[in-house]
């Protein structure tokens, strides 16, 4: 597999949300608007790239039996860094994402890539894998957030394009399940035909 494929696999072929179905808790919870999805995706991407890079550089020093706690400490450190930096420089976004920033620690996607990929592969591949997977996750969250915001609020990225009442349920929790279901179906159809 060349590095380009390694990078692009995260978008459709092995998309974390639509295909691997990893990290669904933040996916469903924070995507009530496009900007929330984008913010959450980028925060996760940073953690993913940074933790993948560190895990792959220290992998040969970590005894097998303590690798999971070691990875969790590494991931948790980066999540806390993201949390502090967001609080300092993007307080508004930090307020809306709230509890879901610390919860990136337990996002299966991050640990999954550390354990399943970065602990076995080279530095470069791991970094590219983290970037591709993270941006694929961002893409999925932004798409989900956009659809929900369009249907539920008549706007996209806070830009109103329709007046009057929208279909409120899409902003509420059930809307997350409905839209995600349809998007997964659509992506599966696309994957089958190509």
């Amino acid at each position, binding site marked *: 597999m060349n590095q380009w494929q390694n990078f692009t696999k995260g978008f459709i072929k092995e998309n974390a949300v639509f295909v691997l179905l990893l990290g669904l808790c933040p996916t469903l919870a924070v995507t009530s608007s496009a900007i929330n999805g984008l913010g959450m995706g980028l925060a996760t991407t940073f953690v993913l790239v940074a933790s993948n890079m560190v895990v792959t550089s220290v992998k*040969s*020093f970590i*005894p*097998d*039996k*303590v690798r999971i706690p070691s990875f969790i*400490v590494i991931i948790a450190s980066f999540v*806390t860094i993201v949390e502090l930096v967001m609080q*300092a*420089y993007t307080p508004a976004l930090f307020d809306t994402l709230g509890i879901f920033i610390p919860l990136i620690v337990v996002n299966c996607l991050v640990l999954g890539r550390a354990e399943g990929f970065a602990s076995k592969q080279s530095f470069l591949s791991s970094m590219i894998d983290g970037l591709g997977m993270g941006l694929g996750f961002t893409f999925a969250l932004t798409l989900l957030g956009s659809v929900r915001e369009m249907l539920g609020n008549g706007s996209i990225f806070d830009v109103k394009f329709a007046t009057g009442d929208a279909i409120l349920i899409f902003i509420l929790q059930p809307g997350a399940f409905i839209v995600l279901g349809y998007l997964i179906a659509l992506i599966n159809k696309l994957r089958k035909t190509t």
Partner: protein
Amino acid sequence: MAKKVKSSFINMVLTLTIITVVASLALGSIYNLTLEPIAAAKKAAEERAIKLVLPTFDTLNSDTIWVSIPVDPGVEDQGNGGQDSLRFYKAYRDGKCVGIAVKTFSNQAYDPTQIQIMVGFLPDGVIDSTVVTQQKETPGLGTKMTGDKFNGQFAGKNPATFKLFVTKDGGQVDAITASTISSRAVCDALRRAYRTFESFEKEGGTE
């Protein structure tokens, strides 16, 4: 690939110790680096809210005032000895007090998170405007409390004559559709602010 370190007891203890020490060092330094920006961001957000709710002013009383009042009768004591205390910011233009911003709150919102509202009073007790600074209400329903349609109805009203209860409870506030609880919480916060403002005024605080 380099050979894996063996999972002996010593190795495991050493590895975990080194990783946690490095992680805590890194976090400690990041914490120190972001300490000031975080405080600044919080202060800026508060100042933005004060500017929104008051008429133009040139100086803000930098030493904020805490005013305590007895809690509403019938409202459960929040463990403050039956007292609420709110933070007051006095704003001046050309040496004259043009308004007072009060940071008020309510614990009766739909989400257990406290809602916080910045209220601007003119010296005669009329509400200049209000802005919700913290809320975690249901998206699309209770979150409308931040919108102009709901908040706009408080501007220019004097709580001495304007009953700060939702119409369902015999007041004059139009509740948000399907969010009576959130609307009640806002009324509760505003009543608390006004009661505090009254006791502040009696002591001559608005001069």
